[in-house]
């Protein structure tokens, strides 16, 4: 029972923060709400016995990505409500579309009959040891390839963000 309550709490936080991300006026607030959202998701991971991911999630997302976002927002001085408003019609369309997508996805999931899992089969799948074994045996090559990806991303972002010289 306790876990159910914990789940609902966490879920409520996730949804609320996610909505706030979308509806905040200032990008700074959005970033903050998103960080909060990520923490709640990390909580879900812990619930699901995925400790390794939970930690990585917080480090990577909250620690790195969101900080990067924050820096960008502040560096570009976007912290004002400069965004012109969209028409009410557009807004309504967006909300309705989002809602419909939710319904359609739900319906799709229902029809695929995925609800067979009432409880986890084994509980130790998310432990560091297991994930590590998987990562360095079966997924060795993709893992190594990510380094290439990172190099590309690094170089790419440096090139892109560099001030254009007048040639």
């Amino acid at each position, binding site marked *: 029972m306790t876990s159910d309550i914990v789940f609902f709490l966490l879920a409520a936080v996730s949804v609320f923060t996610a909505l706030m991300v979308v509806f905040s006026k200032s*990008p700074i607030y959005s970033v903050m709400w998103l960080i909060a959202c990520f923490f709640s998701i990390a909580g*879900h*991971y812990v619930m699901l016995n995925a400790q390794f991911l939970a930690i990585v999630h917080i480090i990577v997302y909250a620690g790195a990505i969101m900080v990067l976002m924050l820096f960008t927002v502040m560096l570009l001085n976007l912290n004002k409500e400069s965004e012109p408003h969209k028409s009410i019609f557009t807004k309504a369309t967006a909300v309705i579309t*989002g809602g419909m997508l*939710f319904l359609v996805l739900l319906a799709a999931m229902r029809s695929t009959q995925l609800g067979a899992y009432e409880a*986890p089969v084994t*509980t130790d799948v998310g432990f560091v040891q297991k994930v590590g074994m998987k990562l360095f045996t079966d997924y060795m090559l993709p893992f190594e390839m990510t380094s290439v990806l990172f190099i590309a991303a690094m170089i790419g*972002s440096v090139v892109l963000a560099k001030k254009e010289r007048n040639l």
Partner: protein
Amino acid sequence: MKEVITNTPPQNWYLVLSTLLFSIGVMGVLLRRNAIIILMCIELMLNSVNLLLVSFSAYAGNTDGQVFVFFIMVVAAAEVAVGLALLVSIYRNLGSTDIDVLSKLKG
């Protein structure tokens, strides 16, 4: 082996939750015009998928799902780096991050 939480809610709930998060992300993308917020909404969508993968992995007892999540995080990190660099560059050129200004692709 340490004690772990064994008493978990049914997986359907996670499905609903991640679907809801995903839809919110989509809604955000549709609603907002600031490129940074759109980027954040995309992160939100990625996370909803991550959540889904982790839940499946946990319930099916298969570690592969969590490895995927790991890789998604890796890609997301790279993506954000490049995406933000792009944004900075765009901002420098156009003085705005409003995506409606970026209509050079108009046919």
